[in-house]
């Protein structure tokens, strides 16, 4: 599935991934392949991404919102 992490100033990440872990407002949650469509707000915390090569990438955010549908995930993040 495809993930994009976008801030108002630049694109932080864009590419194929296996798993993403997000700091949701109701608690941390993970999105794997074929997740149901979801829109959620994010809190200050760390986004953990596992890409196709099983490499873990992390992004620190101040907050944001995520929209996921049909295996395409878009994170609108705020960073310092």
């Amino acid at each position, binding site marked *: 599935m495809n993930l994009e992490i976008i801030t108002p*100033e630049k*694109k932080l990440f864009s590419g194929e991934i296996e798993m993403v872990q997000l700091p949701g407002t109701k608690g941390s949650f993970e999105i794997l392949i074929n997740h149901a469509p979801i829109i959620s*707000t994010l809190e200050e915390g760390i986004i953990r991404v596992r890409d196709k090569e099983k490499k873990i990438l992390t992004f620190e955010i101040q907050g944001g*919102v995520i929209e996921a*549908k049909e295996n395409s995930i878009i994170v*609108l993040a705020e960073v*310092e």
Partner: protein
Amino acid sequence: MANLKEIRTRIASVTSTRQITSAMKMVSAAKFKRAQDAIVELRPYANHLQSVLSSLGDALKADEENVYVNAKETGKVLLVVVTSNRGLCGGFNSNVVKKTLSLINNEFAPYSKKNGVDLFLIGKKGSDFFKKTDRNIVGIHNEIFADLNHASASKLASEIIEKFLSGEYNRIEIVYNQFKNAAVQILTNEQFLPIKIEEKEEKSSMHTFTDYIFEPTKEYLVKVLIPKSLKLQFFKAVLDSVASEHGARMTAMHKATDNATEMIKDLKLEYNKARQASITNEILEIVSGANALEG
């Protein structure tokens, strides 16, 4: 005919002026490029935020609860005026100032009669002008251009939003130069708050309908997303203004360089004419001197 030395000095001074204006043009071109890139980078974020907001659909309707949509009648409006810190950019700043004055005297005349129009100024040029008038100024922020990013713009935006939420103003407008391209700026006044919600999306939401899970709730999402989109709108206005400023300066400096070139051409022609005349004069003197000796 002016004397040779005088013309020579003028040529020298116009040439150095041309050098300065063409250098300024190039500096503006570089800064313009950067400002334009920032706007381009902002676009995907803005588009996605818009699509998320529109998928919230009916939760976004104007209801009693939504503090961003409903304005209390307070008899006061706030104008956010975005100018630049530096001049030499043609009518860029004076256009904004004129527009603001015309808004105060026409659209918001009922408010200004009761002294109900306040100004929130961004940019030194605008602040310098309005400080001399007796308008009520609630904030001056010229420092934002020194380090313009989303975080610093958001801080100012929240300050403005706070003024609306506290019930001090029933309307907030932004006056700024919208960026179209390097040569064209569109002078705009945009309603910032309360938010106008378009009710046209019924059709478009039908065919892209997705059954989302909303976390925590739709209402909470609306509450969080509206300030985000407002901050973004404000950030975009400031970025637009910066790009427009450099575009305007580029155009102004380009014209100044062209004018200087034209002037140098004319002066050179005049100089050569004067030089020729003085040589002719000298020959005449020599010839008539020689003739006098022979005779």
